[in-house]
């Protein structure tokens, strides 16, 4: 066991972990931040995407100890200070970009990372960027639409309500 310390959603967090403890396990089991989901064991599904020092990372693919001293952001810290949904979260609700909600935290965190680097992505750029985030419910239609809307683009001409 080794002690690991990091900042999670702006607050100091620490705990004792085994060498094999994944960042996703540390967040879920030791910090109780169960919004970060684990949907596979091969780093394909992206339900566990968090930000580590500002970069989107699959938390199942990083050891907790590798995050020593890092700034970690999870879905629990994304809402506005008053508790209201942030722009991306609100766009997902407005455009029905989620159904069962399991992939959603990873989708929101990936979308945030994309829009930070590319504030007005095209449809193709969004679809390409989401290559590492699987959703089984939505057929991706409303996820792509929500991310375009969150970036301030007019989505009214995209098919269906």
């Amino acid at each position, binding site marked *: 066991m080794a002690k690991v310390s990091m900042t999670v959603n702006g607050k100091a967090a620490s705990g004792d972990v085994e060498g094999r403890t994944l960042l996703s396990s540390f967040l879920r089991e030791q910090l109780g931040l169960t919004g970060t989901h684990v949907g596979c064991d091969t780093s394909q599904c992206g339900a566990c995407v968090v930000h580590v020092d500002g970069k989107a990372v699959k938390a199942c693919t990083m050891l907790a100890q590798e995050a020593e001293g890092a700034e970690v952001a999870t879905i629990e810290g994304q809402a506005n200070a008053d508790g209201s949904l942030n722009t991306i979260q609100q766009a997902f609700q407005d455009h029905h970009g989620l159904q069962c909600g399991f992939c959603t935290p990873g989708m929101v965190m990936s979308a945030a990372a994309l829009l930070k680097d590319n504030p007005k992505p095209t449809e193709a750029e969004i679809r390409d960027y989401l290559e590492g985030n699987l959703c*089984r419910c939505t057929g991706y239609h409303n996820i792509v639409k929500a991310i375009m809307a969150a970036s301030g683009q007019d989505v009214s001409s995209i098919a269906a309500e």
Partner: protein
Amino acid sequence: MPKDNGIGASPKRREDVRFLTGAGNYTDDINVHGQAHVHFLRADVAHATINSIDTSAAEAMPGVVKIFTGADFAEVGGIPCGWGVTDRHGNPQQEPRHPIIAHDTIRHVGEIVAAVVADTLEQARDAAEAIELDLGDKPAVVNMGAALADGSPKVHEDLTSNLCYDWVFGNPDDDAVQAAFDSAAHVTTLELVNNRLVANPMEPRVAIGDYSRATDEHTLYTTSQNPHVIRLLMCAFVLGLPEHKVRVIAPDVGGGFGSKIFHYAEEAFCTFAAKACGRAVKWTSTRAEAFISDAHGRDHVTKIELALDADNNFTALRTNTMANMGAYLSTFSTSVPSYLHGTLMAGNYKTPIVQVNVKTVFTNTVPVDAYRGAGRPEATYQLERVIDKAARELGADPVALRRQNFITEFPYETPVALTYDTGDYVATMDKLEQVADVAGFAARRAESEKNGKLRGFGVNCYIEACGIAPSNIVGMLGARAGLYDAATVRVNATGSISVMVGAHSHGQGHETSFPQVVADMIGIDESMVDIVHGDTGRVPFGMGTYGSRSIAVCGSAMVRATEKIIAKAKKIAAHLMEASDADIELKDGQFTVAGTDKSVAWGDVCLTAYVPHNYPLEELEPGLEETAFYDPANFTYPAGAYACEVEVDPDTGKVSIERFAAADDFGNIINPMIVDGQVHGGLGQGIGQALLENAAYDEDGQLLSASFMDYAMPRADDVPFYQVDHSCQTPCTHNPLGVKGCGEAGAIGSPPAVVNAVIDALQSGGKNVAHIDMPLSPARVWAAMNG
């Protein structure tokens, strides 16, 4: 102007806020104080005898609480099959015992051989490594044709063969059917495979068993689409527990698509082990486990023949299908290739003679059961492919050939036992041609050709049967359960309402759409109505969510219970206003006496029901709570037409979906936004089946595509924006909302459109390709083009 409240409106989903902020409560998010963890040692060979299991070294490992093997479950029942099919000779299906833990024989890779319960998951995994197994190799049976051949090794030694049942449906008279083919002007024959799939909801399965010695009560937290069904099956057939001592909770569930209907060994194990170990026992599936323990879907091999007369009218249809059951019969496995498939073989067409022949087969593979659509995609795929092939052989337009053979008068009795109550297939096809912009296809094809690509257009129709019922009829057909649903409407003293529903929402948005109905009926704001679901301790009863039944069956129960509430509330209002019950009207949450200006508000009536000071106590009980059970008179029949446009790269065989259009008739619609989303998701899965997904086994019974690295799930860049329309609406005639169900349409209706489009593209490029089996991977398409 779109509505902003009630039936037909699209309010934002109330469940979204918790999911978008990480506050969802999925089963793996639950931890019970003092819980232990179980790791299942699973078979890594497909077929073997278990000569011995030595757990002594493992038991001595740190943290180990107890290790279970098949012997511990010798006195426990097997996992039941919920549907008994009678074969063509009147005999029952062959039904092997389905143990919780393999006892003396392993029958598929992934079957549980031992279960290690330890303080931590890591300790349980480490200890499992120390279990010594002595196995005797047996030959694996994987291919269905080989499994049915004389002399094949048997999956179950105590059965007579690997045949589960040999079933015929529709017209059983072989000679009469053959005569129809003999007299046909044209016969089109097609042999095809409906590829085996893995449902893969993004949330893997989880089960937590908890037991209270103080009350002798069990609690099972599980990722289920139907907690009451799990409680019933587990209590009555597996563990022999009284239902009132067992509570099953299915909290937020991260998708199901059928795979979370079934009662699984892990649920019974955790319930059993919690009492045996004296502490809660938790299991969370890895994705690797999910691939080899969640029931798979589809896996049919079919020959279909279509007879036409000289005017291109369909005169007869005959199918021969082998359907894989896997090693054991999962909960609804036997109903899928029989009644959920055979009854749909008429499709949207007035073919007078239909004969469906199905052999179901045991193999050394994971059990196969319902996956989104369940039998109906298999029926639709073969029918809509053979029609397209017939059109090509006859030089007919595929759309015109379909239109010519549409059923146009309703109600319509099919030759495969259904009565379609309503529909308008011409209208949905008209709408499709508009939405898909058929007129612009030639220009788009020319543009693709300029870019060196082949462009194809494919269309298909579909019909599905949702809300399986009535219970007495399905009972005669072999169902071992009722297929009604139930709802309790509990009005609180201050007028807010909790509706306890037997349906379970795992992505369908019931928490938003169900209150729309109740609020609309009473005329109050939706925020005053909440849905309670997923907990046998809070919901009286229910059969759960599958087969696109939630709004049609459970929603109808909710309407009936709300009608009872309104009827009682009117009596209270009549008393308060000193009027006759018959003169009371309810609108916008106000009770009025017809023809007067007297009124009393909803909230005042509710308060009076619970504070009955001025109340007709001699005639009416206090309180305002009503329950209804609703057993539908018939299935509902959503139908529609889908169109796909693809580009094929002739150099690589890579297919890309350029456009996909859907015109659906779902009857009346409660929440259009949610309906669109359901169709989108179904299309994504159907396109996945057509182009990407395949659960492939090798001849030794090893699943080759057993992770997301090998099993190609559809990704965002595999699919386009979809054009979805549901403006054609012929309301269901026999349920109070006129609704039909929309959950599976997309998955049922899309695979044939994709394949038809690819064939069209290849033929436009001069390639004489009549069929390619799904998934249409670049390798398969390239091989077909260059074959």
